[in-house]
């Protein structure tokens, strides 16, 4: 299966901008460890992953009455801004959750990707 993993809230992790450079280096080490753990695991492929810009740079797009509407900022229902994402192929939810344990302790949302080609 393919999953989109959204790093959606800081959880118990200090906001990036409040972290010392040592703390930031440590977090980068965790991201690195996650990459390596994914690479080492059978049937797992990290397809994409990026850090995202600040919430103030996000744009929300909605279509209302057939009209595209753009508003400044992140989607309102997401109170905190999304920090990043991964697109990962993994055999199942347990394998994925096991690997995500390598990352900093963010709140995340895991959404399976729908295979429209089938």
């Amino acid at each position, binding site marked *: *299966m393919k999953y989109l993993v959204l790093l959606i809230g800081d959880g118990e992790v200090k906001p990036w901008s409040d972290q010392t450079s040592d703390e930031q280096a440590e977090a980068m080490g965790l991201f690195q460890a996650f990459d390596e753990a994914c690479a080492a695991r059978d049937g797992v492929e990290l397809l994409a992953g990026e850090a995202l810009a600040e919430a103030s740079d996000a744009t929300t797009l909605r279509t209302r009455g057939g009209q595209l509407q753009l508003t400044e900022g992140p989607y309102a229902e997401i109170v905190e801004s999304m920090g990043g994402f991964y697109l990962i192929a993994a055999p199942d939810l347990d394998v994925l959750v*096991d690997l995500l344990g390598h990352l900093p302790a963010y709140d995340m949302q895991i959404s399976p990707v729908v295979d429209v080609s089938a």
Partner: protein
Amino acid sequence: MTPVDPLGEVVREEWGRLTALLLARYRRLDLVEDALGDAIEAAARTWPVDGVPDRPAAWLHTAASRRIIDRLRTEAIAQRVEPLLVIEAARREGGRVMADPGALVEDDLLRLVLMCSHPALAPEAASALSLRLVLGVPTPDIARLFLVSESTMAARLTRAKKRIVGAGIPFGVPDASVLPDRLDTVAQTAYLAFTAGYSPGTGADLLRASLSGEAIRLVRSVLAMRADEPVLVSLLALMLFQHSRRDARVRDGRLVLLPDQDRQRWHDDEITQARALIDAPVLRGPVTRQAAAYTIQARIAAEHALAPSAAETRWEHVVRLHDLLLEVAPTPSSRLARAVAVAEARGPAAGLAALEGVEIPTTHRIAAVRAELLARAGEHDAARAAYDQAIAACRNEVEIAHLRERRQSLG
């Protein structure tokens, strides 16, 4: 000796194994249950005429397999693509076909149990699904046990099954580092079903022992595969102690509290078994927090079960066990139970002090306990007010009758 209902018996004993076996082979959660239902229906038609086959479980397995293969052929023709259940790669590559229940099947049953009580499922859904898929309890019965309509329960089960496939919840055994945590969830799932039967919130029945009995059966079947798992050993002990009192808890449709129960009506065989379980060596080593909490609760239940009479309960010892429980599981219901023990050990005033600040919004129990302690302390006005509060919040008719009676006895 031929059992009175050979089909009913094989369904009861083998449902979980058959489901697990068929799932491992066909990976189609949506087809397996229906196919097994069809096979049982066919058995009900043919066995009385042709006689019960030598190996009834194998017969059902073959019949259900045929149904599934028929369905798969029909689908292949219709070119429909259904999502498959996720099965670990190693399991799939083996590609082995198992016609007979055997050692490997036990493993499949464990996979089924772990899948049904996966932490990514809502706890109520996991409980219901476990009863359905592992024990084969019919959906209308599960609906009755959980006090919801049949259509609500059917929808809940369907949603849970869809979610297993959709979210990629595996039909597999996680590695040893995660397994104890997952078995904790299995235990919680079973205990949720057990307590739902033991203290129903609404309706006329004081307890539905059959649901609690099914929950015990669920724990036993997992324990048969993981005999020394501390969380399962301690949970079974706790359940058996509580369950042993079921017949004494209701008399003439009225609630009978522990001190007034007829101890002759307790099930001694279950108490004996529970005692042996809490003395198991496996509970003396390091255990998970969950297992520790069950063990302490079972030891508290043991104090009650083994006291020669209610008056001779070692209440100070019970209070010490409650203190220990609060360290492991500092929940409002633990604090409520401790306050009750404190009142018995040191008098109603001490109990009321221990009850101070305990709040559980969803239950009438705190008000009921406060009322009882106030009555014992001679504060009848305050007791009446607390009884009124408890009666207003209580949803169980038998308990309401009991509370009314207590209130009236104050004069």
